[in-house]
């Protein structure tokens, strides 16, 4: 083998191993827990380690917060939720194994992993075992149609992104250019199918869209390209470090217009850009200063538990998934909780107007009301924190 042939090989090996991330982590699957009438066993197949462990950890934290609150408040009477966490290692095969064990256990409901590949692979197991599977994945293509036991307790960003369009129009910005992560199907589709037509409809001229692979590490040429034609605003539909990097590159190359984005900019992603990110706005399902009672309650609990951290969407999603589950249980009376009763409870909850969670009043939407809609909120980043610009209403997109 020639020497150069080693390089691609090595790369593949390198990337594969790097992608696998850390150790395979221990799972704490609660397979054979005794389900006495006093306990409500549930299992969360979580991305505790691996590629999206940063999501998994936060969702787990939010979920645990809700379990503590529910168990100590007595809102389920004497019954206590017992949460087992099974580590999927952000890996579809592991997730499937863990889900198979979870549905065989006495868990009355399961919470699925965040990556869509994992969610799609694991949901059929829950559906077949007739156990409610509550997903916290961001997009639902193909997930909810898997069956009537499948719920998704994270609101699609499509439901609150209209807030962005509305704000761009309200600021009187006449033109925009959008850069999007070309290898991210969600963001690509969101950009071309939703943002562009809606901005145009709102009277904002879209001068062009620019796709970039998320492996990009050089942004100056992109910034020059985006600036040409002097658009009054530039939209970033990108993930990870690309948000602060693009803001930095645009500002350093002298761009003076407005820069806006979408929810990937949350959770401190803009911190590296420092002051340059001031004025950047985007829409999210949850932000620290949401004024709703149920949101304040979550924020307060979170701050007590993690005084040094700022709560963001993923924490809220975990919390809300558990809150929705608890409400479903309580709607089914004080008897023993079974898989069937959980389903009935979820259906009742969906029909009766949803629940109040960290994101505010959350309603169930979609064909069989197994998806949710939150009010959403438009925030502006300023000096290291999100500031509320405008509150949304649940189901906003249905009114458009």
């Amino acid at each position: 083998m020639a020497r150069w042939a080693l390089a691609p090989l090595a790369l593949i090996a390198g990337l594969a191993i790097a992608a696998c991330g850390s150790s395979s982590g221990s799972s704490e699957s609660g397979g054979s827990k005794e389900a006495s009438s006093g306990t409500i066993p549930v299992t969360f197949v979580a991305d505790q380690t691996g590629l999206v462990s940063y999501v998994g950890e936060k969702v787990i934290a939010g979920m645990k917060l809700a379990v503590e609150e529910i168990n100590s408040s007595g809102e389920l009477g004497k019954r206590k939720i017992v949460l087992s966490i099974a580590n999927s290692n952000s890996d579809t095969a592991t997730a499937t194994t863990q889900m198979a064990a979870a549905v065989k256990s006495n868990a009355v409901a399961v919470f699925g992993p965040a990556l869509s590949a994992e969610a799609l692979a694991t949901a059929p197991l829950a559906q077949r075992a007739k156990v409610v599977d509550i997903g916290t994945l961001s997009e639902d293509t193909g997930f909810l149609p898997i069956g009537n036991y499948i719920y998704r307790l994270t609101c699609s960003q499509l439901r609150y992104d209209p807030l962005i369009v509305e704000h761009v129009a309200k600021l009187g910005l006449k033109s925009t250019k959008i850069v999007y992560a070309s290898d991210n199907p969600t963001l690509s589709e969101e950009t071309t199918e939703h943002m562009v037509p809606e901005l145009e409809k709102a009277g904002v001229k879209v001068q062009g869209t620019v796709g970039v692979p998320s492996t990009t590490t050089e942004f100056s040429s992109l910034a020059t390209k985006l600036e040409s034609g002097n658009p009054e605003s530039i939209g970033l539909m990108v993930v990870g470090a690309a948000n602060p990097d693009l803001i930095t590159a645009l500002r350093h190359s002298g761009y003076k217009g407005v820069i806006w984005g979408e929810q990937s900019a949350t959770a401190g992603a803009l911190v590296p850009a420092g002051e340059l990110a001031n004025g950047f706005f985007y829409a999210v399902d949850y932000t620290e200063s949401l004024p709703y009672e149920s949101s304040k309650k979550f924020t307060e609990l979170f701050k007590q538990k993690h005084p040094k951290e700022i709560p963001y969407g993923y924490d809220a999603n975990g919390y809300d998934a558990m809150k929705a589950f608890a409400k479903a249980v309580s709607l089914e009376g004080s008897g023993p909780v079974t898989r069937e009763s959980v389903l009935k409870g979820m259906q009742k909850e969906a029909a009766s107007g949803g629940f109040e969670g960290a994101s505010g009043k959350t309603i169930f939407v979609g064909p069989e009301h197994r998806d949710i809609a939150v009010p959403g909120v438009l925030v502006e980043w300023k000096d290291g924190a999100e500031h509320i610009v405008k509150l949304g209403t649940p189901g906003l997109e249905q009114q458009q």
Partner: protein
Amino acid sequence: MLQQLINAIVFGSVLTLFSLGLSLAWGTLDVLNLAHGAVFVFAGFITYELTKDSTMSFVPTLIVASLAAGAVTLALELVAFRRIRLHFPARRQAELSMLVVSVGAATVIGEVVSHQTSEAAFSPPASAFSIHRYSLGGSVGITNIQILIVVAAIIVAVALDQGIRRTRYGRAIRALAYDPTTTQLLGVNVGAVAAATMFLAGALAGLAGVMLAIYLGGEEVATGQDYLLTAFAILIVGGVGSIRGAIVSAYLIALAETAVVAYGPSQWRDGVAFLLILVMLLVRPQGLFARRRFQRA
């Protein structure tokens, strides 16, 4: 147009700084150090740690972080690569083991950094280095950090090229690359030269890491992987082990990628590097600046 040319030159300089160390280690010691990207990010992380409370100014930070990156690579050499070389006299076997070790090291360094930064992108505060933009007429301009990157790349490239050609250390390195056994018989302490080389390679990655941490808005562990990918293209296009080849192909790839972003479908920019690799392998597999090197049976 002019602005994009400036962008390309700056990007080429970044790539030069990043890939010279990799090229040096691969060309002379057969170490395909896949931890190079991680070491690069590690230096950015050190920069962030040293400056986040505005405790250290730019120049000392640059020195400390580069040395730290050099030290990490040196440690890898002493702990792993050297032992592997002694343990497997057969080149190919040693190469493969070193590859695997460097992947492991990359993972460990990456995990440490991402744990320390809670997996978020990080960047030194604006106070660490205040960026100014100088207008060159119209909308064309260049920032001070961009100038610094270009100047650093030129200095490093010339110094390394001349150092390898003209100094005793350079001769020792070239001899070592060709035939380690004979080189040792000629009185060269090959262990020391290898250690110095790996330290230098790491420090160069560090230098690039510090400047990039300031230049980019934010660095994350994946940034290093992405640069590594492009650096491989550079090494193959330039010819393995050729310092001049690496420099020329770094600017070439930067120019090509910038052109694609500026005038073509920008999502294909990664494709450019791989297209160049492919064309190179078909047309001139030894690279632009092939270094005759001796291949053992």
